[in-house]
């Protein structure tokens, strides 16, 4: 599996700050929107690993000072990539209104990505809300590497409208399991229910397993609980308020077990081993 290995072994390149323009801003259901971005010149973005992120900032004057972190959803080449977002506060509100041609400043790619699989492990990807992008990229990359069958994407939302961008994943041949709290699409309830079933089944088969997850904290906590209970390795992609994104403000501390009490979401993460995260 040469291609696979090559994809995952691409090592983090030095990040750069560069200008991009919004090529397209597509409103999706549930208040989500996808920004397709274009850089005028070659950038290190082609080297992005699933789980890495960029810091984006518009020409917002002096009020909103810092960039906002977004996981990379998709990379077309060294000049074109996409992010998926939803309005939380002022920054995402401004981004949601960005029209084609709007210039943004981008820093990235930043952070670590998900670790590469070992052997013929089955990777169970667990996504919720704006946690989709890193797993979306992971699934697409796996499919490109001919490993679509080694990946299953579990994707949860409150209702149908929260489930976006599934076509690309399905057409890439990746198995998709959807659950919505109101049952309007897929299983009714939390996505961790079908996930547990699959975990049990795969364990019964004796298949080597791991989980990769990104989404709201309660979902990550549930995944972590499953991982610890069933002894399945899991990596969580965390979101922590970020100032810089490249390890200098020390704002994005993540409480961990280990030699030091904190690691940093932007440089040590955003992907962490579920066992090391120090959550109540």
């Amino acid at each position: 599996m040469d291609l696979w290995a090559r994809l995952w072994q691409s090592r983090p390149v030095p990040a750069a700050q560069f200008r991009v323009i919004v090529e397209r801003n597509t409103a999706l259901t549930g208040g989500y929107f996808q920004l397709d971005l274009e850089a005028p010149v070659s950038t290190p973005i082609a080297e992005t690993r699933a789980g890495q992120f960029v810091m984006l900032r518009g020409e917002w004057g002096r009020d909103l000072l810092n960039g906002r972190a977004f996981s990379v959803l998709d990379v077309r080449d060294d000049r074109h990539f996409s992010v998926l977002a939803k309005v939380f506060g002022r920054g995402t509100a401004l981004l949601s209104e960005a029209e084609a041609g709007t210039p943004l400043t981008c820093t990235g790619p930043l952070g670590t990505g998900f670790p590469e699989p070992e052997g013929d492990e089955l990777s169970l990807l667990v996504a919720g809300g704006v946690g989709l992008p890193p797993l979306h990229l992971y699934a697409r990359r796996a499919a490109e590497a001919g490993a679509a069958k080694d990946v299953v994407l579990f994707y949860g939302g409150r209702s149908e409208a929260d489930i976006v961008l599934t076509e690309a994943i399905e057409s890439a041949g990746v198995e998709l399991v959807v659950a919505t709290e109101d049952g309007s699409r897929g299983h009714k309830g939390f996505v961790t229910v079908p996930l547990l079933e699959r975990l049990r089944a795969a364990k019964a088969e004796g298949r080597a397993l791991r989980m990769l997850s990104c989404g709201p904290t309660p979902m990550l906590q549930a995944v972590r609980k499953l991982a610890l209970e069933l002894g399945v390795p899991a990596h969580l992609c965390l979101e922590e308020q970020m100032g810089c994104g490249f390890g200098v403000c020390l704002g994005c501390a993540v409480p961990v077990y280990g030699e030091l009490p904190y690691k940093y979401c932007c440089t040590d993460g955003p992907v962490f081993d579920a066992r090391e995260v120090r959550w109540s």
Partner: protein
Amino acid sequence: MSRLACDFGPLSLQSPILTASGCFAYAQQFEQFLDLKRLGGLSTKGISPLPRRGNPVPRIYETASGMLNSIGLENVGVEAFLSEKLPFLASLGVSIWVNFFGTDFETYVQCARELSEGSAGRIDVLEMNISCPNIKKGGIEFGTVPEVAHKLTRAVTEATDIPVVVKLTPNVADIVGMAQAVAEAGAAGVSLINTITGMAIDVRKRRPRIATTYGGLSGPAIKPVALRMVHQVHRALPELPICGMGGIISGEDALEFIMAGATCVQLGTINFSEPSASVRVTEELDALLDELGFENVAAARGCLESLDPEPPHQEESPWR
């Protein structure tokens, strides 16, 4: 760029644009974004004798044109700083300001002594932070009572041959009194200003936005306060070198500080969103000095004039 060369007391700087403590880490991460050799200098994250873990999260929050932080003076400690960080910094050939602090009188002196002894000439300035509002023990009293600051400065300057620049807190009624106290105790200059203590609340969670409740406010929001303090200190103590900071994001901002009386300036928060800001600001300042006809930075320093007085008021217009 000799137009930008300037002297901070006994120190020669190739440019008055430095980067600020806590906003530039130990510089390595910035190598990927800019040519560090173009800086006038840089101030490191504050160092203490022993490594320190930081505060609980959340540690930062954005406010109107500013940000609150309560990092908790997390740092690698003197030993690791000297062995792991300083060699890289020294290789840059720019002025290295090592920001440091202690948790009490003795550890301040100890930290300065250990840094001096291990510096081997590679540290240009010891920037003593007596102003961090995040440390419960010690910090805040050092920075707000002139007599205490005086005693501390005296003890530290006696423990080292490296020039000591004292970084003052703006959370005082009389910044001039503080500057005077440390100047008389042997400080080579002052850095003005550290962050202003502030707070924000998440009304939905009924909780402070910062785990430690209070944090330090930085960014453009505080620029008017910083500029006022630089001007007050310069007017009262024209011979004292001042390193100005607080909300600088452009060459014009930097020139405002220089005109108010700063010899050099530091950029803080802007480095987070624009890691190469210091180079842009350097270029903007150079162009602006040129445009306004200043031969060099020193010519602009403190050159503020007051406004023309109005003609006297009379009840009868002289023109009627």
